[in-house]
């Protein structure tokens, strides 16, 4: 690789950006590396925002990926509080607020995702201080305060974020009402049985679910809200937290020539449709050679490793990103883990009887594991979920009998 001086600009200040900047410095000590972010903090971990930070078990200042010293020592500039208004891909210049104007030779877009907003009739309620979304540290701090004050909280949306917040609220011995428009928790990617086990755990802790329920309207009555569901059920609440999914944060590029289809379309080398422009993390809809299709992921490990691979390719190493997708969710003492692709299979088999020993569903395609999803108390499924990733990555054929037999160790088939 030619180690000539370049201006490498990274926009977005999350996990993909932090790890990309670290990786660039492993290969290139000369180029200018600048991260431009809307955040007022250095890049930080988001998983604790719905879990340990909400229940005061982790301090917000302990969530940084790297300290200020790391960026200083590695000569990486982090420009905070910058909202980008425009990108000129021909002149290779970005402009933002506070007279920010920066040129680049190589650009990495890692702007992440943003919350999908819930549509409901009375828009005037959108700025209510007791109707909240979770995306960043400030949101988490607000929710942390509000859940201690509230009496009858409601969460709209039973995805991972909504359920994790509900589990956190339960630790203050408050019962949460959860509303979900579909028929099961955490979407159709999660096996129905696992979804039911998670629901049962929430119910045992006192939480109440309304599935198959659309919001008809939300009205304010004195200090409370009244949520009316489509079958005219009314729910009174003093705190509404909304978690109805995320969308790629691409609005600033939408009138440009950059190809965007459910995120910025990139190849397996993180390259976009425009030369010298790369994308990584939640914002990228990337080609995955192992599955032969494009996918967009919103997960911790993906953001980290996609950022690292984008950096390698920015530095000219030409390495394709083939990581098997992996994510987890913690709710109460339950740990859910998912690897690969669980919604495209021709056969499936389960392993384990209950959450005490761990229960895993393997999804197979032509006798090769395509995806796996497990649930257990503590980290009991972690090892086999990881082995499922490795077996899948190596495309090793494995029988349903072996996968379902808990006395057979899966590592000997690698």
């Amino acid at each position, binding site marked *: 690789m030619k180690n000539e001086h370049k201006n490498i600009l990274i926009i977005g200040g999350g996990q993909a950006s932090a790890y990309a900047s670290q990786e660039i410095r492993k290969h290139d000590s000369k180029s200018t590396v600048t991260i431009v972010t809307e955040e007022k903090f250095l890049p930080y971990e988001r998983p604790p925002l719905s879990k340990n930070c909400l229940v005061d078990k982790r301090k917000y200042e302990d969530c940084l990926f790297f300290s200020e010293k790391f960026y200083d020592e590695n000569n990486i500039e982090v420009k905070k509080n910058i909202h980008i208004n425009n990108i000129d891909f021909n002149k290779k210049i970005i402009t933002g607020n506070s007279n920010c104007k920066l040129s680049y030779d190589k650009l990495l877009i890692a702007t992440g995702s943003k919350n999908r907003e819930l549509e409901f009739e009375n828009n005037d309620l959108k700025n209510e201080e007791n109707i909240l979304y979770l995306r960043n540290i400030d949101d988490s701090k607000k929710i942390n305060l509000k859940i201690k004050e509230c009496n009858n909280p409601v969460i709209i949306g039973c995805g991972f974020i909504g359920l994790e917040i509900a589990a956190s609220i339960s630790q203050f011995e408050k019962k949460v009402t959860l509303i979900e428009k579909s028929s099961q928790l955490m979407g159709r990617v999660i096996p129905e049985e696992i979804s039911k086990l998670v629901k049962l755990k929430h119910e045992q802790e006192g939480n109440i679910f309304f599935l198959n329920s659309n919001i008809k309207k939300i009205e304010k009555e004195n200090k409370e809200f009244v949520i009316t569901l489509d079958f005219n059920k009314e729910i009174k609440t003093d705190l509404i937290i909304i978690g109805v999914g995320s969308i790629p944060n691409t609005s600033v590029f939408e009138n440009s020539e950059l190809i965007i289809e459910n995120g910025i379309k990139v190849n397996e080398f993180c390259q976009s449709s425009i030369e010298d422009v790369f994308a990584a993390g939640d914002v990228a809809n990337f080609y995955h050679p192992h599955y032969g299709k494009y996918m967009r992921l919103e997960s911790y490990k993906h953001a980290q490793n996609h950022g690292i691979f984008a950096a390698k390719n920015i530095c000219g190493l030409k390495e394709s990103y083939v990581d098997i997708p992996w994510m987890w969710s913690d709710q109460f003492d339950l740990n859910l883990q998912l690897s690969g692709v669980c919604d495209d299979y021709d056969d499936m088999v389960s392993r384990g009887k209950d959450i005490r020993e761990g229960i895993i569903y393997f999804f197979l395609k032509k006798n090769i594991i395509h995806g796996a999803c497990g649930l257990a108390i503590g980290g009991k499924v*972690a090892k086999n979920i*990881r082995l499922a990733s490795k077996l899948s990555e190596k495309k090793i054929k494995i029988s349903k009998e072996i996968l379902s037999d808990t006395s057979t160790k899966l590592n000997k088939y690698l």
Partner: protein
Amino acid sequence: MSDDWKLVCKVEDIEMEDLIRFDHDDKTFCVYRLEDGFYATDGICTHEAVHLEEGLVMDSEIECPMHQGIFDIKSGKAVSPPACDDLKTYPVKVENEEVYININ
């Protein structure tokens, strides 16, 4: 000095390419059995206070069950993010088919 060696288990209690958790006082350790012998590290991941006992042991490495940070078992070195601080390692010996760890 002999008091520094603590009995962990019998050799047969740890399968090849696997580990056993060992708690002593307020500390948790992991004792591993690899092809070329027994090794020990701290039992808690340096990244986010997670027990490593459910992690995958493979190719002389232990992978955290929570965030998949990876450590070299023999040196304790963090080899894959998000782990960046190394694990402390401890001497291990086998006597009369029993595994001992020196936790000082």
